[in-house]
């Protein structure tokens, strides 16, 4: 080592200069609950079961999503639409039971691609955590798009 290296001090001054420079750098922190980072437009999050403009469920329980699912996370049971239920379901057949096991789901988005009715899509929210396994088997009611979400989407101009 040369004398300059041996007395450490020039190197230390150099180091201090670097850290001093960081005072003026932009902070990387996002104050999470108040500020959220924007999701990518192709982000695949929690599933949402879609409804049409009149609020009728789009899903016809054809089972293509369950077939496409590589993780075999989707279970469904079909049922026939009765008279007087036309305002609930768009077509004659509908899903009486529709469950996705979120612990199995790998969020690949194949169900969204497979669906011929645009009934299921992967939304922009992430899955909340929980202590029990039961919580992660999402029922139809957990995933069905809410009126609030519908309204928001209508305001955004049909996304």
């Amino acid at each position, binding site marked *: 080592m040369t004398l300059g290296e041996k007395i450490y001090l020039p190197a230390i001054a150099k180091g201090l200069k670097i*850290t*001093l420079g960081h005072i003026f750098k932009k902070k990387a*922190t996002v104050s999470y609950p108040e500020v959220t980072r924007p999701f990518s437009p192709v982000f695949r999050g929690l599933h949402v079961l879609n409804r049409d403009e009149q609020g009728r469920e789009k899903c016809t329980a054809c089972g293509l999503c369950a077939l496409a699912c590589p993780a075999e996370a989707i279970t469904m049971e079909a049922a026939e639409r009765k008279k007087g239920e036309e305002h609930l379901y768009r077509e004659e057949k509908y899903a009486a039971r529709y469950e996705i096991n979120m612990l199995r789901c790998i969020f690949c988005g194949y169900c969204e691609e497979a669906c011929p009715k645009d009934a299921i899509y992967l939304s922009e929210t992430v899955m909340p955590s929980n202590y029990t396994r039961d919580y992660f088997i999402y029922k139809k009611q957990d995933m069905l798009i809410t009126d609030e979400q519908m309204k928001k989407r209508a305001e955004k101009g049909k996304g």
Partner: protein
Amino acid sequence: MLLLSIDWIFIVEKVVLILVIILSSFGVAAYATWGERKVAAIMQDRIGPARAGIFGLLQPLADGGKLFFKEEIVPDRSTRTLFILGPGLFMVTALMTSAVIPWGPDFSITIGGVERTVALQVADINIGILYVFGVVSLGIYGVMLGGWSSNNKFSLLSAIRAASQTISYELAMGLSLIAVLMVAQTLSLRDIVQQQHGFWSDGYFTWNFFKQPVAFLVFLICSFAELNRAPFDMPECESELNMGYHQEYSSMKLGMYLFAEYINMFISSAVLATVFFGGYNFPWMDQVAAAVTGGLFSIICVTVLMLKVVGFILFFMFVRWTLPRFRYDQLLNLGWKGLIPVALINLVITGGVILFFFNK
């Protein structure tokens, strides 16, 4: 009855001063922990504590409160008395050093028709610097007793490291200060500060930093080692010794150790500012003294000293978050083979200069 005529006001005055100094040391130390986190955050492009109060200013309270509610654990096979004594001793020695530091110039106050001169210094002893050294050396006993009595191998190793590190660096520290004492011709901190009056006199700076820059540098490096702070935080390097000497400590006993370290840093900064950076002196202080009343002038002086102290504390933190830790052999090499020779050479040169140029 003459023997009983104790100057009660004097005692009250000193007690108030001691209380103010100790409480403000606590306050500064508490906010030093906050400052440390903020400095670390800024160096690492983060924002640091921001949830407790505005800018996270209540963070020290939250930390302290958390420590109070933690479980007190005394290891089964520890030496109980010493184990409990350790943090207390460390804290006491940390606070004791503040007694000899002159915090500001004297000011007059009239109590009951009698004008009194109040010194902003708890005790003006004529061997002030020796006292500081003595108490600082005692401080290592808190660490050693704590580490040894925990009955934990890591704690013991770290205590031994701390002891040998402190002893090694105390030598260089003392030698560097001797040069300053040769210039000042006194051991009293009060006199040393008064000699550094103002900023410029007789065609040269009055502050000791400009008279003894090498001594300052050696003293500064040694104070890092004495404070057990990075880059010399050997006693608590988590990569080798888990947590070091306070491994077995929990709750407020751990808090006392951590807190006393920050108080040490505060006092050490105060000593640095007093000995090398003119204490409470500042440029154009005579003009300021003429313009304002005595009490206000004292407040200004104390503020100036505090600003210097905060500057040093920030520097300590700034260095901690910049430099990696020295290896133990490198540390001792630097102390014995680097700093002690430099301090000795500085001593000889200072002696020569005084003998040949200022020997009247």
